[in-house]
């Protein structure tokens, strides 16, 4: 069964195309990741699928229901954890859950049972009567996930679920998300700009950049696509390195913010030669590392830029937009 079917989905904001005719399918029971830098269009995509934003063009079916035809039908079958906080801080954890349960018209006895089960699941049952404003970031996130699950949605959207959390809490949350998917069979679509998160959690990943999907596959296949090894060289003379490294065993070479990424096979047997070559051209090396391709390399491979560079661009665009007087 297809949980989500997206076809040519597009969103424009005053002529700026934030999401550009993307298409993909998500199977029931999958954990599907939208991986991309800030400003890539992940939240916009999720907002359209969750019926909070009207698409400019294209269609999508969520659990077989058209997002434009039957908004309430879609809303009943999805749960969502927004990128930004969305709890009422003046209410307790229990009251936030109760409010949600009432909004989804869950009868009282079922509601109360689910609240206690879910609060136990996210280990907040001992704090259920504390006001949310006394909670840490990780506790709030867990509460939001529990709340999103309360009406037993078939599809759960998680928009940057671990943004701004410390590594330990992130690990904890990953564990929850995995077991939710395994135990309850909930289809999960999550967005992230953390490579390791996408890699660890997702069955399949769509890499999204500037509103378009540039690659989509399992993490293994995406990384396997590049093949071989990657050598990353940091150097003050990085710009002059590509001209020097012309050996035929190099399959690809990218220059980006003071670093050079070299794609090749059997890096171990070539590293000495490579360092020697750079030495003979008097190119100073600050560091060299060999590693298997990561999703970051995949992103670089397809876009010629790192995610960090893309984010800097998106941030610059945002500043332009919010310049006083433009409004």
């Amino acid at each position, binding site marked *: 069964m297809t949980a989500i079917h997206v076809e040519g989905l597009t969103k424009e904001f005053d002529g700026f195309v934030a999401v550009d005719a993307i298409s993909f399918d998500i199977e029931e029971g999958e954990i599907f990741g939208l991986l991309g830098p800030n400003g890539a269009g992940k939240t916009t995509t999720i907002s359209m699928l*969750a019926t*909070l934003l009207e698409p400019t063009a294209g269609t999508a079916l969520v659990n077989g229901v058209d997002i434009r035809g039957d908004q309430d039908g879609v809303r009943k079958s999805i749960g969502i954890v*927004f990128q930004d906080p969305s709890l009422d801080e*003046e*209410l307790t954890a229990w009251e936030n859950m109760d409010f*949600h349960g*009432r909004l*989804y018209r869950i009868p009282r006895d079922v509601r109360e049972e689910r609240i206690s089960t879910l609060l136990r699941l996210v280990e907040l049952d001992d704090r259920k009567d504390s006001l949310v404003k006394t909670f840490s970031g990780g506790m709030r996130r867990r509460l939001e996930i529990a709340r999103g699950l309360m009406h037993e949605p078939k599809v759960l959207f998680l928009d940057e679920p671990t943004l701004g959390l410390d590594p330990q809490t992130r690990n904890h949350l990953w564990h929850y998300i995995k077991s939710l998917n395994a135990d309850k069979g909930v289809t999960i679509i999550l967005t992230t700009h953390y490579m390791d998160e996408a890699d660890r959690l997702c069955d399949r990943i769509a890499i999204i950049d500037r509103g378009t999907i540039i690659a989509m596959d399992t993490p293994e296949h995406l990384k396997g696509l590049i093949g071989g090894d990657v050598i990353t060289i940091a150097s003050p003379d990085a710009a002059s390195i590509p001209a020097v490294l012309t050996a035929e065993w190099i399959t690809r070479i990218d220059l980006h913010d003071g670093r050079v990424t070299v794609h090749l096979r059997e890096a171990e047997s070539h590293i000495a030669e490579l360092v020697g070559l750079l030495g003979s051209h008097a190119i100073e090396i600050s560091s060299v590392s060999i590693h298997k391709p990561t999703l970051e390399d995949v992103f670089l491979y397809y876009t010629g830029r790192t995610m960090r560079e893309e984010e800097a661009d998106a941030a610059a665009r945002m500043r332009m937009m919010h310049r006083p007087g433009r409004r």
Partner: protein
Amino acid sequence: MDIVYTLWLRSIKRYVRSKSRILGSLGMPLFLLLALGFGLNSVVQIPGAQGAGYIEFIIPGIIAMSVLFTSVFSGIQIIWDKQFGFLKETLVAPVSRLEIMLGQTFGGATTAVIQGAIILVLSLFIGLQFPGISGFLIAFVFMLLIGICFAALGIAIASKMEDMHGFQLIMNFVIFPIFGLSGALFPIENLPAWVRMVTYLDPLTYGVEGIRYGLLGTAAISPVTCLAVLGGSTAVMIVIGAALFRKASI
């Protein structure tokens, strides 16, 4: 209806918890009541109101004022929900925006009536004669209508505002004029004709006069007219608030 109740319940919970806000918003009406009431009681003669001093005259006005302010604030609260993200949680649920808007309106109106009722009870200690049960009930009906009408206005305003920056502007050019022109602090009968016309355009005028009729037994406008006009204004305000809230983006 259960959705309206859910939102109403949340408003009430938040209200009961904000002790400092409750006390804070009692301060200004009480101050006005005492300063103006006692300060001007011996100076100002209210024509037509035999025996009733200025302090009795402005008690209904001050009650109306605290209902007005509390209800507008509670409507505008939606902006905070927008900024703190909670509004998204409500809007992504399979419920209509009308239900959300009505719940918020009634919640705001209820807290506003409670604020007004506190002033009313305190007024009994500074000179207000007990008007009888029916008088009380009449006053409550008008307080409730004021509360609903202006909570809906608050929501209408909040739907059009991105953040709290415009708040001062709204206070100075909408809320204070509504209060000032309502005859809460002065009798409207003796005003120059054109000013009186303006007060007749202010829905709060009918609320103030309605409460005045309930508590003092006399009013410049007949209570039936007051009920009809204020009731009509309230209905219109709900329609406007609902329409604007429906189009509000998050």
